[in-house]
């Protein structure tokens, strides 16, 4: 009995390093397991032109060499996989994303950047790429992905919820960057830079584009709770209660005036909302709607 326990212990000790090294070359997205060796082939076919030979985000499509060396071709630098700071995560700020998070970015692409959707690849291809991307940074060797933040079930959409979200938008000073109407023209907007000192624009809700990290209310919730690491967008996880967060989601949807969401329809059905949305659609100038500057 004792001896068998002892043997089992030894077996676990011996197997542990094997298990860890195997994990580093793998990714797990649902039932699909990715392999870094296969991902490497794909990376040096599809990705390295922008993301670079070493994955540091300085491929020749980003910063050409020779006489054009000082003028980048791309207006947003490709992700630096060596630093492993990722915008789109379901994990807290400062932590590594899950395999699924990176996979989702490959599926979606990143709106308003040069990163396309890689929907043309197979599920297996994308899983393999995720596995390879994780070998490009030392961080994956010592750190695990962060724990996914808890997103509670979305409560029913009400006018009160939208109104409360509007108050939060003012109180939390989202408008400092995103503008009083969410047009990305707040007082700090023109000064923003990302973590590489490159100018960066806050999201313009009225512009009609998708969010950087997804399209659903669930995605929107995660965006402001996790923050977009490497950008000026901070995490609000410590300062917004989950029920308040959903109110903010409902209000933010009404700022997307060109996207007929259930939130916008409900908001336009109220006297207050109809006036605000009308002004936003027609003039695109600050309505001074409850924003004390």
């Amino acid at each position: 009995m004792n001896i068998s326990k002892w043997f089992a212990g030894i077996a676990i000790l011996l197997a542990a390093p094997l298990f860890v090294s195997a994990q580093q070359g793998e990714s797990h997205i649902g039932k699909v397991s990715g392999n870094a060796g296969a991902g490497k082939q794909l990376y040096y076919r599809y990705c390295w032109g922008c993301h670079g030979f070493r994955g540091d985000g300085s491929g020749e499509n980003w910063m050409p060499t020779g006489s054009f060396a000082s003028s980048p071709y791309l207006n947003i630098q490709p992700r630096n996989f060596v630093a492993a700071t990722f915008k789109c995560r379901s994990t807290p700020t400062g932590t590594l994303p899950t395999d699924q998070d990176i996979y989702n970015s490959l599926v979606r692409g990143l709106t308003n950047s040069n990163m396309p959707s890689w929907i043309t690849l197979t599920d297996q291809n994308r899983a393999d790429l995720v596995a390879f991307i994780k070998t490009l940074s030392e961080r994956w060797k010592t750190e695990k992905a962060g724990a996914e933040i808890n997103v509670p079930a979305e409560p029913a959409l009400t006018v009160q919820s939208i109104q409360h979200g509007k108050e939060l938008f003012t109180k939390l000073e989202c408008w400092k960057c995103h503008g009083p109407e969410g047009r990305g023209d707040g007082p700090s907007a023109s000064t923003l830079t990302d973590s590489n000192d490159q100018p960066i624009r806050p999201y313009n809700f009225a512009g009609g584009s998708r969010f950087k990290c997804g399209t659903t209310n669930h995605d929107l919730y995660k965006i402001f709770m996790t923050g977009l690491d490497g950008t000026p967008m901070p995490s609000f996880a410590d300062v917004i209660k989950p029920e308040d967060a959903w109110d903010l989601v409902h209000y933010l949807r009404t700022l997307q005036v060109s996207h007929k969401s259930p939130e916008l329809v409900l908001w336009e059905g109220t006297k207050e909302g109809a006036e605000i949305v009308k002004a936003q659609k027609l003039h695109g100038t600050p309505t001074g709607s409850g924003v004390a500057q």
Partner: protein
Amino acid sequence: MRIKNVFLAGVAVLTVSMIMPARPSGGTVSGKITYEGTPAKQKPIDMSKEPTCAKQYTTPPTTETVVTGANNALENVVVYISAGAPDEAAPSKAAVFTQKGCRYLPHVLAFQVNQELEVMNEDQTSHNIHPLAKINREWNKSQPPGTPPIVDKYDKMEFIPVKCNIHPWMHGTFAVLKNSHYAISGSDGGFALPNLPAGKYTITAWHESYGEQSQDVTISGSETKTVSFTFKAKPY
């Protein structure tokens, strides 16, 4: 029984307090940080976009990329032992970084690896605290007025620039160091690293605009050695 315990504890405390001052406190490295040349002129900060902060000043505060004192003294230089001293466990006291009047107090905060860091917001406006770590983890958190301190720690040595994206004039530094032998030069440029056991040390001085300089020094007994650094100032 209980009285005896209390008595013994009392004796122990007395003994320790009697022994402590008698123990040799080791050597000291002290000196002065100066600059030569013309440092960049610091510009007044326009805080008009943040009235709650602007109204806290009668004259606008200036930027702090180079802060100088009389007789070419250079302030905000982190002086630390980069070689020769063993890594130390973090002290239990938290290092406190305060946002007040849309500025960072202190402008340069030094603390140890794995020491608790507390970030406070004493302003009536939201800040986002964005330490741009490259070796440690980079995070970015919003801190509206009246919310509890943000608590974190760093597990690797690094000089981390800190900024607030909402108020682009706010810049500071976290100096995460491996041991407790560090000092930040004051308005007279002076610094002191006391309680150094005998040994050979590399003393490094770091300034956010002028970079790093190092000097070797050997300490024996309880002597005080003078080590001074002069940085070349650039006017732009």
